[in-house]
């Protein structure tokens, strides 16, 4: 084999490798960019808690509770104290006697069921915990959830 032919062979190999890398890269990019959140209803909850206990836990140590629950899927059981409209959707809220509260924003597909819920109803809600903060406006601790689903 001449030196020229060896060079050509290498070039060919490099070209094939580059095309393969490009395809893998494009595939990975496609995967990440078209990925969507799974339906919360079919996701397993990492914790199941009583609403008022969860508020107490956040009030006791905001930082410890945030570390434990933030961005985790959690099932919360409790009695709804108010139903609030949020733009075109509806949020459910559970407030303790001191005014601290948990608020749940729902997945689009659950909204029809959520709109049937009334104050005083006992519910079981599964959602992604966004964590707790102290509100300077309301002077109270509050915990928010997103992407929620009503457990049936």
């Amino acid at each position, binding site marked *: 084999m001449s030196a020229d032919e060896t060079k050509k062979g290498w070039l060919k190999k490099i070209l094939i490798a580059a095309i393969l890398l490009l395809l893998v890269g494009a595939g990975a990019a496609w995967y990440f960019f078209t990925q*969507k959140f799974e339906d919360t209803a079919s996701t397993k909850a990492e914790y199941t808690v009583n609403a008022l206990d969860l508020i107490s836990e956040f009030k006791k140590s905001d930082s410890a509770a945030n570390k434990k629950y933030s961005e985790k899927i959690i099932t919360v059981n409790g009695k709804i104290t108010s139903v609030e409209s*949020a*733009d075109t959707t509806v949020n459910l809220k559970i407030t303790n006697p001191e005014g601290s509260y948990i608020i749940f924003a729902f997945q689009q597909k659950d909204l029809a069921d959520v709109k049937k819920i009334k104050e005083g109803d006992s519910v079981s809600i599964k959602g992604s915990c*966004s964590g707790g*903060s102290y509100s300077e*406006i309301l002077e109270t601790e509050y915990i928010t959830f997103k992407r929620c689903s009503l457990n049936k």
Partner: protein
Amino acid sequence: MKKAILILALATTGSVFAQKKTTTSATVKFDATTKLDALPVAENKTVVALIDTKGGTVAFEAQIKGFQFGNPMMQEHFNGPKWMDSEKNPTSTFKGKITNVADVKFDQDGTYVVNIEGDLTMHGISKPLTGKATIVVKAGAVSATSDFTIKLADYSLGNAGGKLADEPKITVSADFK
């Protein structure tokens, strides 16, 4: 006399309190989409908001982790240490004033365009923000909407090599109680 002062004081605080309307379900939409990237769009529906119908104070508090994206990777980047860093800066706030609050008749049905001046804090940085909002009074209920743009550079946030809009659009809406 002392009793009279006490009653007066209570009555005053009572009426001041009534002028402050709040909500825990205000929504804030964040849209940094470009022709290159349609994914950076999110909504937070559990924003705390306040309006003082007498003094004109307006305030908002939004948890950064409360912003819901359609795409999980985008949500991770938004919260990550290279962008909002929501572990270190968990909330974004706006504190400001309606400069022409006297023009709004909160006891009459109507639609009013107001001017707002204040400071927006996010990513641990506070910058002045001015804009317009529309207040609707209907059967005693007060709602407000506003949209404006912010400059990412003001808050030391990068544009991911041009994939994010340099001036994302923010849309706010609140139904006060």
